[in-house]
C-alpha cells in the first residue's frame, strides 16, 4: 500500500463517510462550557478531553461489517482489541463482524489521544460505551422507522434488530444508511447495557484483533510503512546531549553506492523538548546503504555543556545530596525529635541507574513533505503531539499535517516523543518532497534515548521501645523529566514525587519526605511507571529491611505499616493523584491490604523452601491501581540467580479485558526482572556507553521467571472507577525480587542492577 492508498483508505473508512462506512457523518466540534474555577479530573482534565459521539467511533457498512475507530495507540497493551470490544459490546455487534481502523492524530476531533499514563480504558471506557450504546439506539430507531413501530419495541441483539411482536428482523448492514441519517440520542437518553448482559466486556474471551496479522508478518509497524518513491535515512546525532556538529566531511559517505545525499540537520536549543537532536543524515536507496554511508562520515563534534557527564561521579553527587537535608515535600509530626529518641534506628541508601526503553522496534517513521503539506506514518504514542511538532518545525498549519498511526513495536514512553518523526519530515523536505523513512539503529536508540532517570533514595526510620515505627525520613534525589522542557530545573516535579513517594500511605506519626537538588545532563524521559520504579524499589526494600531489623515477618510488617483499611484523600496529604478526583480515587489502604493478603495466600507465603531459595514480597499503588508481588528466587552457590515463580495480584477495579490484564502483568514482571537484574545505561564524557544488546542486556527466555501466576482481584461493578493496567505491574517486581534474594542469601541488594553482585 503506498502513501496515497493509505490516505485514501482512511478517507473511505471514516473521513468522508462514503463507500462501506455508512454510519458516519461529519461531526461538529463540541463546544465545552467550562468553569475555569472547577478543577477537572480524569479524561476531562486531559487536553481536548473526551468524546462519545458514535459517528466518530463507529462505521457500519452495507455488508454489516462494523468498523470501530481506535483513537489510542497500540503498543502491546491490547488497546485496539479492548476499545473495539467495548464499543462492540454496547453496540450488540457480532465480534466476527468487527474490524478496527486506527485514527490519525486529531485531538480536536477524537479527544485526547496521548496513549500514556495507563489511561486508555481508565478514561475512555465510559465514553466508548456511550458511543456504542448510542449507535445501537440509532439502529433500533432506524428499524422502528422502517416498520413504523415504536422504537421501544425494537431490540438490537448480536448484529440483528428484532421487532418482538411481529418477529421481523433486519441486519445491521440493512439499517446502516438509515441509521446514519438519524440524530444521535442525547446523553441522558442513552441506555447502557447492564453488566450482566455483557458479551465481551470482562470476559477475556476474544482473541487479539491483530493476532493473525502479527503471526503472519502482515502487521505494519512504523518501520514497515511504505510509500512510492521512498528513500531511506539514518542520522549521526551529537553523542552528547546539547552538543552539535563542529565540522563534517561527507565526501566519502557520498561515494557509497546507493547514497543519495548527505544532509546536515540543525541541533535545537536546550532544553530540546521533543525536537530532533540534529546531526548529519545520510539518505540512500536502502537502509543498508544509508548505514554504510554513515560509517564513512567524518564529523567533529562540539560536546557542549554536558560533555563531562560521568555516571560514577554523578552517583557520588546524588549520594552527597541525599545525605543532607533537602526541600521538604511532605511533612507530618517531628521526624528529628522522633529519630533522636528512637529506641532503634535503621537507615539505607538505594541507587537506581538510568535505563533505556529499548523497544524492540526502534524509533522509525516515514514522512512526505510536499505540495504544502506533510503526511507521516509513525509508531507514536501521542499523534497530536507529533502533529504539532511537525507543524511547528515545518512552519505549516496543523491542518496541513497528517500523522497516521501504525502499530508500535513497543512504546514504554519512548514513542511519546516524536523527535524521530520530525527527522523524517525534515529530511523529506530536504529531498524535495521524496518520502523518507528514518530508521534508528540500535546504537542510536540506546545512546539517544529519553532515559529513565537515575536516582539515589535514602531512607531513615526509628522504632520506639515497643517495636513500632515512629519516624520515617525519605530523601529522593533524581534529575527531573521537566528538564527536557524548562531550563535547569533542580527539583523533581510534584507529579514525579507523587509517583509512589509523596502518596505513601503508611500510618507513621512523624514523617518527612525531601527532594534535594539534582541537575540533568542528558534527556530524561518517562519509562513505563516512571518514578514509581525508584520509589517503590526503595520503600518496599526498606520495609523489608525494617522487618528484618525488628525480627518480624516481612508480609506482616508491611501490613502493619499500611495500617488499617481507610481512605486517604490525596489532596489532603498534598500529593498528585494521577490526575484523578481524590474523592473518586482515594488512596485506599483496604485495597493495598487486599492485594498483599491475596498474593501472600496464593504464593503460599511462609511455605518451606529448599536451601538457596527465598520468597520476597512488595506492594505498590500506581496509576490508581494496587499491585503486590511475591517473587521466588533460587541463588546457587556460585551466585547464579534463577526465578522459578512469580505471583502477582492486581486490583485495577473492574476489568474490561482480563486476558490483557494478565498479559500486562506477565510483561511487567519480565520488565521488572530486566531492570532489577540487568538494565543499566552509564555515561562517560557525556556519552552513553552501551550501544547494543551485548552491553545493554535484557532478560531472555531462559532467565525469565519460569512461571508467572496472575491473580486478578476485580470488581464486577462497572460503575466503579477503572484503574490503570499498562504500568502498575512494574514497580513492585524489583523490590520483591531483592527481598527474595535477601531471604535466600542474607545479602541485601541496594543498588540496581543486581548484575554480578551475587557472584561468589
Amino acid at each position, binding site marked *: 500500500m503506498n502513501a496515497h492508498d493509505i490516505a485514501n483508505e482512511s478517507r473511505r473508512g471514516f473521513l468522508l463517510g462514503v463507500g462501506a462506512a455508512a454510519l458516519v457523518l461529519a461531526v461538529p466540534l463540541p463546544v465545552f462550557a467550562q468553569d475555569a474555577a472547577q478543577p477537572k479530573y480524569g479524561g476531562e482534565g486531559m487536553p481536548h478531553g473526551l468524546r462519545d459521539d458514535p459517528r466518530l467511533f463507529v462505521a457500519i457498512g452495507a455488508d454489516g461489517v462494523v468498523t470501530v475507530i481506535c483513537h489510542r495507540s*497500540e*503498543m*502491546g*497493551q*491490547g488497546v485496539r482489541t479492548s476499545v473495539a470490544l467495548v464499543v462492540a459490546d454496547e453496540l450488540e455487534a457480532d465480534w466476527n463482524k468487527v474490524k478496527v481502523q486506527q485514527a490519525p492524530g486529531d485531538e480536536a476531533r477524537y479527544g485526547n489521544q496521548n496513549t500514556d499514563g495507563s489511561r486508555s480504558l481508565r478514561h475512555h471506557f465510559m465514553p466508548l460505551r456511550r458511543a456504542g450504546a448510542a449507535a445501537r439506539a440509532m439502529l433500533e430507531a432506524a428499524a422502528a422507522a422502517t416498520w413504523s413501530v415504536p422504537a421501544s419495541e425494537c431490540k438490537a441483539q448480536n448484529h440483528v434488530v428484532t421487532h418482538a411482536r411481529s418477529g421481523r428482523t433486519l441486519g445491521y448492514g440493512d439499517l446502516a444508511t438509515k441509521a446514519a441519517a438519524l440524530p444521535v440520542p442525547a446523553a441522558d437518553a442513552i441506555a447502557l447495557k447492564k453488566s450482566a448482559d455483557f458479551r465481551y466486556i470482562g470476559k477475556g474471551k476474544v*482473541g*487479539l484483533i*491483530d*493476532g*493473525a*496479522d*502479527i*503471526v*503472519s*508478518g*502482515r*502487521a*505494519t509497524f512504523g*518501520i514497515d510503512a*511504505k510509500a512510492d518513491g521512498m528513500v*531511506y535515512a539514518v542520522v549521526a546525532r551529537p553523542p552528547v546531549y546539547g552538543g552539535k556538529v563542529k565540522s563534517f566531511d561527507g565526501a566519502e559517505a557520498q561515494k557509497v*553506492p*546507493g547514497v543519495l545525499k548527505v544532509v546536515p540537520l540543525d541541533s535545537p536549543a536546550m532544553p530540546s523538548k521533543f525536537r530532533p537532536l540534529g546531526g548529519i543524515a545520510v539518505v540512500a536507496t*536502502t*537502509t*543498508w*546503504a544509508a*548505514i554504510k554511508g554513515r560509517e564513512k562520515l567524518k564529523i567533529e563534534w562540539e560536546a557542549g555543556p554536558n560533555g563531562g557527564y560521568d555516571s560514577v561521579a554523578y552517583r557520588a553527587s546524588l549520594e552527597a545530596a541525599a545525605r543532607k537535608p533537602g526541600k521538604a515535600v511532605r511533612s507530618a509530626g517531628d521526624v528529628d525529635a522522633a529519630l533522636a529518641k528512637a529506641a532503634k534506628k535503621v537507615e539505607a541508601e538505594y541507587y537506581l541507574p538510568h535505563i533505556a526503553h*529499548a*523497544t*524492540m*522496534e*526502534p524509533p522509525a517513521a516515514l514522512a512526505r513533505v510536499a505540495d504544502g503539506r506533510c503526511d507521516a506514518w509513525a509508531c507514536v504514542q501521542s499523534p497530536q503531539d507529533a502533529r504539532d511538532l511537525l507543524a511547528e518545525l515545518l512552519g505549516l498549519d496543523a491542518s496541513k499535517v497528517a500523522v497516521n498511526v501504525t*502499530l*508500535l*513495536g*513497543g512504546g*514504554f514512553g519512548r514513542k511519546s516523543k516524536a523527535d524521530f518523526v520530525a527527522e523524517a519530515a525534515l529530511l523529506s523536505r530536504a529531498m524535495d518532497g521524496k518520502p523518507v523513512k528514518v*530508521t534508528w539503529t*540500535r546504537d542510536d536508540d540506546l545512546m539517544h534515548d529519553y532515559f529513565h532517570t537515575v536516582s539515589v533514595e535514602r531512607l531513615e526510620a526509628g522504632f520506639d521501645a515497643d517495636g513500632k515505627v515512629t519516624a520515617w525520613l525519605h530523601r529522593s534525589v533524581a534529575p527531573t523529566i521537566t528538564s527536557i522542557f524548562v531550563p535547569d530545573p533542580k527539583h523533581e516535579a510534584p507529579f514525579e514525587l507523587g509517583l509512589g513517594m509523596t502518596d505513601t500511605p503508611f500510618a507513621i506519626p512523624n514523617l518527612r519526605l525531601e527532594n534535594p537538588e539534582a541537575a540533568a545532563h542528558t534527556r530524561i524521559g518517562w519509562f513505563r511507571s516512571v518514578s514509581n520504579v525508584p520509589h517503590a524499589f526503595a520503600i518496599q526494600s526498606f520495609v523489608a529491611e525494617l522487618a528484618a531489623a525488628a525480627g518480624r515477618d516481612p508480609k506482616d510488617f508491611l501490613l502493619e505499616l499500611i495500617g488499617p483499611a481507610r481512605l486517604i484523600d490525596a489532596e489532603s496529604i498534598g500529593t498528585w493523584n494521577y490526575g484523578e478526583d481524590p474523592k473518586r480515587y482515594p488512596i485506599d489502604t483496604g485495597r493495598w491490604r487486599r492485594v498483599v493478603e491475596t498474593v501472600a495466600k496464593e504464593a503460599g507465603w511462609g511455605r518451606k523452601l529448599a536451601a538457596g531459595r527465598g520468597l520476597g514480597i512488595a506492594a505498590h499503588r500506581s496509576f490508581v491501581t494496587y499491585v503486590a508481588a511475591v517473587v521466588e528466587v533460587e541463588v546457587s552457590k556460585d551466585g547464579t540467580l534463577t526465578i522459578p515463580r512469580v505471583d502477582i495480584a492486581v486490583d485495577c477495579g473492574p476489568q474490561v479485558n482480563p*486476558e490483557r490484564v494478565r*498479559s*500486562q502483568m*506477565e*510483561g*511487567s514482571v*519480565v*520488565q521488572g526482572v530486566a531492570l532489577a537484574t540487568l538494565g543499566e545505561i552509564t555515561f562517560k564524557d557525556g556519552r552513553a556507553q552501551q550501544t*547494543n*544488546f*551485548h552491553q545493554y542486556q*535484557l*532478560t*531472555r*527466555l531462559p532467565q*525469565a*521467571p*519460569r*512461571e*508467572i501466576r496472575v491473580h486478578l482481584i476485580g470488581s464486577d461493578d462497572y460503575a466503579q472507577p477503572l484503574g490503570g493496567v499498562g504500568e502498575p505491574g512494574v514497580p513492585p517486581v524489583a523490590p520483591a525480587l531483592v527481598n527474595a534474594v535477601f531471604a535466600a542469601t542474607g545479602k541485601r541488594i541496594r543498588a540496581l542492577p543486581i548484575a554480578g553482585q551475587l557472584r561468589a
Partner: protein
Amino acid sequence: MINVTVNGREHAFDGPPEMPLLWFLRDVLGMTGTKFGCGMALCGACTIHLDGTAVRGCVTPVAAAAGKKVTTIEGLSPDVSHPLQKAWQEFNVAQCGYCQPGQIMQAASLLKTTPKPNDAEIDAAMGGNLCRCGTYTRIRAAIKRAAEGGAA
C-alpha cells in the same frame, strides 16, 4: 548478479553482495515481515530460514543465500496455518508483536529438528530471541502446544 529464492520465488539481485538479507528482504523486495532489531545477531527479530535452518538475516549477506532457499514469516505457511501460528493465536502470545515473526521462525526451526522439545531445549533454541514486552511464558507454552499438535 545473485539469484535468491524467497518463499519459492526467484529473485535476481545486482546490488552489493554483502548487503544483509534483512535489508534485501525489507528494502529491495518490500517484504517487511522480517524485522530489524539490532543489526548484530543479538536479538533474533530478523530470524529467517536458509534452506530450512534459522539464521539471523541482519548478519547473513545476500551472497550467502545464492542458490539457496530463503523462507520468511510471510512464507511459513500459505494460509497462516502453521501449528506455531495457530498456537501463538490460541495463547494470545503477542503483546506489541514486533519480535514475534522472529520468535516463530526460530521456534519453527527448532520443531523441525526437535519435534517434542523439553524446557532445556526450548531455552537453548529461544535464548537468542529478545522480547521486550516479556511474553516468554506464553512463547514457551505455545511451542509446547504446537509440538503436541505435531508441528512440522
